[in-house]
């Protein structure tokens, strides 16, 4: 006889939960404590000093401007695509959706790099075509407007996805009822479809704003040359320039970004809970309003936009990577793979970065899978108050801007408790930061698949005498393996490209691919940076295609770009 319904399950749940909480929530908590104390005592004097500095205020203003207008650009692009794809009878929707997901999966520093390659006086592509502006004219992207445009393009997928999910939950009957009552065309859209999708639209806007606010790659690549500093780049500049002596100061900045982000996350949660009201009992046939004669022109327009924001910059990147020196026009006699050869096989730093990024991403995927599989199942089976609280907070390290998490990680690990040892400057701090940051990326798909799993599957094994370990090994793990695989690929994909966290945590020897591209571009090696970026884009697309091909075998909700 034993105490409670499932003692072994409860014990294991507590053990894994403690590890998971230490990984994900401890850094956030540590940062919070740091912000509220001044050299060990409780007080806000340092905070008020840092917050009143002109550089802080101007960076805050820049952050709000770029994130705000960037969200507006995302909204226009993402909402237009979402409405047209989700509620009309366009053809080849699958391909369109897949293409619209690519901007989200391509790391921001590569987006920035690729766009600078199709604009400005030294653009190889423009020179080749003979339309480059004269030497000495400014790069138009090195400006607030450039940052806004690229932030908008980078994050349009988020608006697109959330809005499309909301639209797909509207049953066709609702629209048919409006039409039988006499509502026509745009009136149906405005009076029926729009009000029903407002909550998901609002949630999408809030989360897009938070993501844009935390974006480091784009303002770093475009803003630093122009002297246009946002909060994440300000933290980076202070920490890179002055080292850990300014740790207390940048913690306050991180808290500031975190505070703005948390407001955004709360707005998003608020609208997400409101949206559920509409979702009840409403999943029949999705909408398909016929566009009639306008269908072909609309299709051509949409694909033209996709080409402009996706294909064109990639061509710019490719062109730059194929010339012998930056600024030389691309012709049949100048084309060379020298940059590719140099960056992929000759430069020790890039080889090292490949190894680092690969091991970090692979290691994070494996460790998170081992942690999340049993945890998700146990949380589903035996929900406790602690596990519910954790469930509502575990997105935080992923939703908070990367800069905030990095600072939190430094604070937590710069002095390991009870020792003189430090993890700062080692590869382990990056690894632990990745585990915290990508925990939700692995956990949510597994959770989604386990929620759809008949609880009787585990109970059937239990009734024939299988112990907890045997049930996990023989029933739960095999059945949630596809979702875990999808989660692992997503973790690998995001970690492999990651820049924001590693930009603050790297040191010589622990460079990641994101850092190397950033540094190569910073030191003027644009051709090599482009070659490396192209390689990464190809790896990303390959992995996305793998997930896409396997997607039919995944339960609903596992692949983020399929709803």
């Amino acid at each position, binding site marked *: *006889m034993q105490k409670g*319904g499932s003692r072994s399950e409860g014990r294991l749940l507590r053990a894994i939960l403690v590890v998971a909480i230490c990984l994900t929530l401890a850094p956030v908590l540590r940062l919070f404590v740091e912000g509220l104390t001044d050299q060990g005592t409780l007080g806000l004097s340092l905070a008020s000093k840092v917050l009143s500095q002109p550089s802080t205020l101007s960076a805050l203003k820049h952050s709000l401007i770029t994130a705000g207008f960037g969200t507006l650009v995302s909204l226009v692009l993402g909402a237009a695509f979402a409405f047209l794809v989700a509620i009309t009878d366009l053809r080849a929707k699958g391909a369109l959706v897949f293409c619209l997901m690519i901007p989200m999966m391509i790391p921001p520093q590569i987006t920035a790099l690729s766009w600078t390659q199709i604009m400005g006086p030294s653009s190889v592509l423009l020179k080749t075509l003979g339309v480059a502006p004269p030497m000495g004219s400014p790069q138009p992207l090195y400006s607030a407007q450039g940052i806004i445009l690229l932030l908008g393009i980078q994050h349009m997928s988020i608006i697109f996805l959330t809005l499309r999910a909301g639209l797909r939950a509207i049953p066709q009957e609702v629209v048919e009822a409006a039409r039988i009552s006499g509502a026509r065309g745009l009136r149906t859209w405005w009076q029926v479809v729009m009000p029903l999708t407002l909550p998901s639209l609002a949630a999408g806007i809030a989360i897009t704003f938070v993501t844009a606010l935390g974006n480091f790659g784009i303002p770093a690549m475009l803003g630093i040359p122009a002297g246009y500093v946002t909060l994440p780049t300000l933290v980076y500049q202070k920490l890179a320039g002055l080292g850990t002596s300014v740790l207390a100061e940048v913690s306050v900045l991180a808290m500031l970004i975190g505070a703005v982000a948390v407001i955004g996350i709360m707005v998003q949660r608020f609208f997400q809970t409101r949206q559920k009201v509409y979702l009840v009992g409403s999943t029949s046939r999705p909408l398909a309003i016929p566009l009639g004669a306008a269908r072909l022109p609309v299709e051509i327009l949409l694909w033209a936009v996709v080409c402009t924001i996706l294909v064109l910059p990639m061509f710019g990147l490719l062109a730059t990577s194929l010339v012998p020196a930056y600024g030389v026009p691309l012709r049949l006699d100048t084309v060379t793979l020298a940059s590719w050869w140099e960056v992929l096989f000759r430069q020790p730093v890039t080889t090292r970065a490949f190894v680092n990024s690969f091991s970090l991403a692979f290691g994070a995927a494996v460790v998170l899978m081992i942690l999340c599989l049993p945890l998700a199942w146990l949380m589903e089976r035996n929900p406790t108050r602690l596990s519910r609280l954790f469930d509502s907070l575990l997105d935080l390290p992923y939703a908070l801007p990367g800069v905030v998490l990095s600072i939190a990680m430094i604070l937590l690990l710069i002095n390991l408790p009870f020792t003189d040892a430090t993890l700062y400057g080692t590869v382990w701090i990056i690894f632990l930061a990745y585990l915290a940051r990508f925990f939700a990326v692995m956990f949510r798909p597994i959770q989604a698949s386990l929620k759809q799993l008949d609880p009787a599957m585990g109970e059937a094994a239990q009734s024939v005498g299988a112990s907890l370990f045997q049930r996990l090994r023989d029933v739960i793990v095999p059945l949630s393996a596809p979702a875990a695989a999808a989660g692992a690929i997503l973790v690998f994909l995001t970690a492999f490209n990651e820049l924001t966290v590693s930009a603050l945590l790297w040191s010589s020897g622990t460079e990641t691919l994101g850092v190397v591209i950033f540094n190569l571009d910073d030191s003027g090696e644009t051709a090599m940076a482009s070659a490396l970026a192209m390689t990464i884009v190809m790896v990303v697309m390959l992995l996305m295609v793998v997930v896409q091909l396997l997607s039919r075998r995944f339960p609903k909700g596992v692949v983020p770009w399929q709803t």
Partner: protein
Amino acid sequence: MADITLSSIGKTFAGTPAVQDISTRFEDGEFVALLGPSGCGKTTLLRLLAGFEMPSSGQIRIGARDIADGVTGTMVPPEDRNMGFVFQSYALWPHMSVRRNVSYPLEIRRFSKAEIAAQTDVALNATGLVEYADRMPSELSGGQRQRVALARCLVSDPDAVLLDEPLANLDVALRASMQAVFTDFHKRTGATMVYVTHDQSEAMAMADRIAVMDRGRIQQFDTPQNLYERPKNRFVAEFVGLGTVVPLRGVEKTDAAAHGNVLGKRIAVQSTHNSPSHVCLRPENLTISETGDLRAKVARVTYLGGKYMLESVSECGTRLLAETRAKFDVGAQLGLTITTPWAFHED
């Protein structure tokens, strides 16, 4: 020995009682059905027996062995109870072949390879699944899946087999043949079986005894015949079989017989209670005759195949059900005679 004893078992979910104060005993080798409307607590009771739920109060014993105690909060976990469970959804593991699904309980028990193969074959044979052994569950029909689930719970020779609405997802024809499979199996193995269903014909056809449940309590636990002919209260009378419950007045009871007023007519009734308050008028208790002193008007006629069910309304507004081989038209006047209905007491 696998008789199951429940003593004042209760289970509450978040303050709401699902099962209240149930004390009863299922004999060794008995086929028991738990019958009731949805939400009556029958599935909760079954899951308490299996160990998937912990009782909030009371004790459960199998033979001489305590398996759950709601007072001390201790229980034997499901994996150590040696019970079989057949789920409504079958719960076949989709990643394992039919053979592996069936042999898994033996693997868990660390049988030798040869023993596993031999016993699995016996179970597959008994359920007629030999030719499907290498298929995956997704390649089977509903009835075949059900038989795999049954084979899986038989293979390890459980003390008791618990079945949670196992036929609910099957079509009518398949249901009848699966009922035969279950009864045959029960006869052959003599295992104690507890079967949850909301379908009374299913329960009547298979069970030795039926526990009729409502609002978390067992209302009556009796043989199918007694439930139908001698219901204990209004709920059982109305839930099991067709019929109308009407008040009984002016009862005079002697050792030999009892009489009372039903719908204004004085008739003989049967009862074990000293002062019964209601009678249950089944179609069998009503005879249609020209001379019948209870006048009623036909309100609805339903053809049942070979006979008609007449729903008629008496002069005092009571709905009465009668069966007849002759066809009557709606609105026709009938004379009815009541013959010795069952009477029970209700507070």
